[in-house]
């Protein structure tokens, strides 16, 4: 058993036309046993920046608090909002600082930069990051997630199309993974605001 698969997770972030979406499942398990069906894994870090944390639940919560701390101090000292690229770099450095005793998290970052262009990135547990313009995935069923995204994704989707694509890709992927599922949540970030919807899927 890998420690990254102890609690279970599935998440996708995807870019549309002047919008980004981020979706995740709701399950918290302890190996086979399901413990919660409304566990939060995607967190807002500002009104145009979301981070999804997949992996060990304890580290999900601790890293979220740590990122809040770093973000708040930055915004207080610098008197400006943190851009998604800077947040991504910061997250990468935070993870690498624990290179020989890491946080068991494989995060994804989704946001809109100051020109409202989509910014997407993902990283491994020790901070190696990638930046893409289409989609990033993370969790215990990345094989399924990559397959669904590669098939369903098309560039320049509007917010409603993006929502449909994210929802279908996530729900189809988690059905073949025992450790993820039990519902989902999707956030669509646009220049004018964030639209959040809960997904009802197979409750198993």
């Amino acid at each position: 058993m890998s420690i990254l698969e102890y609690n279970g997770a599935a998440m996708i972030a995807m870019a549309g036309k002047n919008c980004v979406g981020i979706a995740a499942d709701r399950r918290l398990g302890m190996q086979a046993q399901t413990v919660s069906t409304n566990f939060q894994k995607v967190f807002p870090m500002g009104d145009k920046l979301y981070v999804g944390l997949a992996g060990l639940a304890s580290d999900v919560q601790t890293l979220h608090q740590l990122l809040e701390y770093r973000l708040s101090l930055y915004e207080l000292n610098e008197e400006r909002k943190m851009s998604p690229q800077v947040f991504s770099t910061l997250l990468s450095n935070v993870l690498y600082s624990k290179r020989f005793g890491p946080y068991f998290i494989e995060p994804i970052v989704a946001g809109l930069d100051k020109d409202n262009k989509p910014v997407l990135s993902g990283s491994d547990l020790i901070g190696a990051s990638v930046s893409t313009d289409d989609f990033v995935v993370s969790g215990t069923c990345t094989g399924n997630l990559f397959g669904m995204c590669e098939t369903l994704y098309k560039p320049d989707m509007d917010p409603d199309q993006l929502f449909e694509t994210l929802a279908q890709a996530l729900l189809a992927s988690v059905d073949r993974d025992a450790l993820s599922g039990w519902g989902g949540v999707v956030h669509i970030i646009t220049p004018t605001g964030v639209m959040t919807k809960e997904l009802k899927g197979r409750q198993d």
Partner: protein
Amino acid sequence: MGDSAYSFSLTTFSRTGKLLQIEYALNAVANGRTSLGLCTKDGVVIATDKKLSSSLVDVEHVHKVEQVTPACGFVYSGVGPDYRVLVRKARKSSQSYNLQYGEVQPISQLVKQTASVMQEYTQSGGVRPFGVSLLVAGADGDGTPRLYQVDPSGAYFGWKATAIGKNYVNAKNFLEKRYQDDMELEDAIHTALLTLREGFEGEMNCKNIEVGVLRDGKFSVLTPAQIQDYLDEAN
């Protein structure tokens, strides 16, 4: 810092509530060669008098205006060796910032950081305050050009235009008369040179002054040839 026999702070309050070590440090600044700066909406200029003790000194290899980040530069009045230490520390800390955040450190953060270092030396064991005031020219997080002064106490101030060092009173009066809020960078550079010439002992030329310019978010030190062009225009 220092050995145990000097583990107490050398900067202590007088009865009247003053920190005399800082006052004396400010005296060292006031005896230093004049430096000045002007901030406009499209850039910042800083300049200093580089006159040295003897004509035998190889003045081209003395650097008073120094780049600290791609978007920030320092100049000083006061004790040169103390300045070099601050430049080194500031460069290191801004590289650290760049490593953490992947961005150039904005001037507001650089100034706070540097001022914090200077303040530490007024409240630590076995050390004395830095004998320099700095003028910092740079771009802030949103790209706005800014000019800051940092004193030996660690106090910092934002300025539209200011002067420090030997002739600062006259220089500041001169600047106050000439400064306009809607000035452009080129006018500011000319005004800076005129102000420097006002209090200059002897003949001012492109070799015995130094000028640094923040233009389009990038800081650079002018070469003697570039300074000569500006001096020629002024004549």
